[in-house]
């Protein structure tokens, strides 16, 4: 521990922390902008400067380490005046469109002005060159960019994609793909992590709201909504509820208030995915163990950001991917086939809206592979943030809504489906089912949670030796199944290098494109809570544990679907509706 003086108070702080952290630990907030705790220390905006006695210049408190005996002023005249000019400089190169900006009232730049008490902007001048690039998932409006470079750090270092970087120099600097190419023409995974960290309206999800309003207003359309598991663990944050509050019931009511005709749950197809993917895995395993031609490890395919990443970065390894579509497109395909048939509506008049924690899914639904008989599986994808905006603009008092249920037949799910929203969840759900199929016994873990793969670490692995196999699975007796789970594309890269080099020891790998899984998806609310990921994760496990049925194969709704329609896993209809193939893409 070190001792130092901040604003006249003697305080202590751990060794090796920056001044801003030392101040925070002593309940002193230093205004800042580009800094993002634990993720991004760059010192670009200089808003967090403080006066350290004995230093000629003001020091960026996010960069400079606190040292024993330092005497620091975070709020004296010198500091305040400098911050004010800095803020005015920021504004002088920023469009004054706050009232109509989608980030109004959730904008960190706007909030900073209030925090600093800036009431005038005296500085004017030319604006840096800017461009608007509307990609399927992400819209870039560089005029609103303040060059904090959080997005670059996330894209390059956390996601390992580096689709965007700083271009040009000085006042002409912009953040963009190489040579100003549109995002859609480069190796962007569309994960949207950049939109989560962007402090202003420079990087946002591409708007889907208007098309949904239009569909809702169109009486000839049957508008179906489905919602991903991670949304229910985070949507409440947009309405001021505690992080980790589950709002499943209120959300269903909100959908009803908004006027959707059918309110389904992507969880339904999450359960279905387990059946299809589990069967596919067992098939590959069987083939491999019996000398057949099977590609292992198999890798999950629910995360479209991950899919786009592997298509660009490892185009030769696409066979490792499960052929299963992601759950929401599966649901869309079923709505426009099974359900449409059931209610006697022309699939062309069905309009499927999926609410996702994800921006990549906006891109995914536009892929030509995600169509059945000329109909797109899903018409519009909304992010959690967009749904919140719709609810607000419809005048719905979300917090006071009563709980209600999803509708049938595509609204039921087991607990296994809920944990699809968190890293390790898909693997756990799959293991719960596969294990029971093979051994006839329940997965031997406390509360069915596969402890080694629970948590927010980048790469988690587990192995289980299969014993007591049922007839038909004797070839698996004594086999030690090795699985790996990763979230975030940098983790995926590490595992893929092994796969590419043929040294991967695993049979089955779960990959989610965003760090921590869908709970931290690119479409999720931007949280200021330091533990938001853990809290959201715990919420999903709570949802799972609260359910009676917690294994996908136990879902009566899924069983009914097979009986009535699909007949068998990996059958002809499954292949038509629920499976897909992938496209090799250029590295950049």
């Amino acid at each position, binding site marked *: 521990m070190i001792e130092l003086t901040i604003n006249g108070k003697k305080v202590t702080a751990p060794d090796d922390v920056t001044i801003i952290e030392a101040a925070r630990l002593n309940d002193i907030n230093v205004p800042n902008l580009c800094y993002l705790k634990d993720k991004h220390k760059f010192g670009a905006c200089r808003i967090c400067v403080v006066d350290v006695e004995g230093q000629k210049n003001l020091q960026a408190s996010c960069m400079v380490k606190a040292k024993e005996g330092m005497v620091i002023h975070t709020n004296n005249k010198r500091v305040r005046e400098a911050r004010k000019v800095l803020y005015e400089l920021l504004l002088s190169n920023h469009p004054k469109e706050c009232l109509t900006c989608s980030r109004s009232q959730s904008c960190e730049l706007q909030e900073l002005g209030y925090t600093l008490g800036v009431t005038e902007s005296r500085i004017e001048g030319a604006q840096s060159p800017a461009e608007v690039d509307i990609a399927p998932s992400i819209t870039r409006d560089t005029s609103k960019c303040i060059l904090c470079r959080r997005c670059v750090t996330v894209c390059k270092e956390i996601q390992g994609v580096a689709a965007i970087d700083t271009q040009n120099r000085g006042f002409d600097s912009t953040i963009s*793909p190489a*040579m100003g190419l549109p995002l859609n023409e480069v190796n962007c995974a569309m994960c949207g992590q950049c939109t989560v960290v962007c402090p202003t309206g420079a990087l946002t999800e591409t708007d889907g709201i208007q098309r949904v309003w239009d569909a809702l207003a169109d009486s000839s359309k049957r508008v179906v909504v489905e919602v991903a598991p991670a949304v229910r663990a985070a949507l409440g944050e947009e309405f001021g509820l505690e992080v980790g509050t589950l709002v499943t019931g209120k959300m269903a009511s909100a959908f009803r208030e908004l006027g959707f005709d059918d309110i389904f749950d992507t969880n339904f197809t999450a359960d279905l995915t387990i059946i299809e993917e589990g069967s596919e895995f067992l098939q590959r395993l069987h083939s491999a163990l019996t000398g057949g031609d099977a590609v292992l490890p198999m890798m999950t395919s629910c995360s479209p950001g991950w899919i786009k990443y592997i298509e660009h970065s490892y185009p030769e390894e696409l066979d490792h991917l499960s052929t299963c579509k992601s759950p929401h497109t599966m649901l869309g395909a079923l709505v426009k086939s099974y359900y449409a048939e059931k209610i006697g509506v022309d699939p062309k008049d069905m309009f499927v809206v999926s609410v996702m924690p994800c921006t990549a899914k906006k891109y995914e639904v536009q892929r030509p592979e995600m169509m059945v008989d000329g109909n797109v599986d899903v018409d519009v994808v909304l992010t959690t943030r967009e749904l919140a905006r719709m609810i607000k603009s419809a005048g719905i008092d979300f917090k006071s809504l009563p709980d209600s249920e999803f509708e049938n037949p595509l609204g039921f799910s087991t607990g296994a489906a809920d944990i699809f929203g968190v890293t390790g969840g898909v693997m756990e759900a799959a293991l719960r089912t596969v294990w029971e199929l093979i051994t006839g016994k329940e997965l031997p873990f406390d509360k069915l949670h596969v402890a080694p793969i629970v948590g927010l670490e980048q790469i988690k692995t587990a192995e289980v030796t299969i014993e007591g196999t049922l007839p038909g699975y004797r070839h698996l007796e004594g086999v030690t199944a090795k699985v790996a789970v990763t979230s975030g594309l940098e983790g995926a890269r590490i595992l893929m290098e092994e796969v590419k080099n043929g040294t991967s020891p695993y049979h089955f790998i779960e990959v989610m494109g965003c760090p921590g899984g869908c709970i931290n998806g690119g479409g999720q609310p931007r949280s200021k809570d330091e533990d938001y990921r853990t809290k959201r994760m715990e919420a999903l496990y709570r949802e799972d544990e609260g359910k009676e049925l917690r294994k996908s194969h136990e879902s009566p709704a899924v069983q009914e679907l097979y009986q009535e329609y699909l007949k068998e896993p990996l059958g002809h209809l499954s292949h038509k509706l629920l499976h897909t193939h992938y496209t090799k893409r250029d590295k*950049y």
Partner: protein
Amino acid sequence: MKVTQEKCGCCCGTNEMELLLCVKEMIAQYKGKEGSLIQALHTAQKIYGHLPLEVQRVVAEELEVPLATVSGVVTFYSFFSTQPQGEHTIRVCLGTACYVRGGKRIVDKLREILNVNVGDTTEDRKFTFEIARCIGACGLAPAMTIDGEVYKQVNPDKLETILARYYQEEQGVDGNDN
């Protein structure tokens, strides 16, 4: 048909594909060598003449550096150009002496004749058009240079005659080639 003529630093072919292969070959020496992106870009520019996207792509793939990062470096340094440079460089002096003697009128007229803006290269890649702060020929104002040769007391009306000389040279060379 428009014939593009690239200046090549080595003796390999002149079409773009061959040049790209040449770039690939020449920068292989930097593969896996720590921090050699800028040196590789120098080499590539020497061969290809400038660094358009396709050259950057080759460098990115060979050196295993993300393309956006390569482009970030290319656009940071003024020595690297992403646009093809003209065969000849015209610099109009806009130092004070030339400015008051009508340097700006030369700029306007050239903009009209060449149909490009300052800093750009003509469509036929004949001329790159730039402005100089002061070339130290104040007594000869207004002045301009073409490839370093000073033209003094330039009258905007005479510009076309001056430029014509550079087109004639070209025709002469073509004549010999065919």
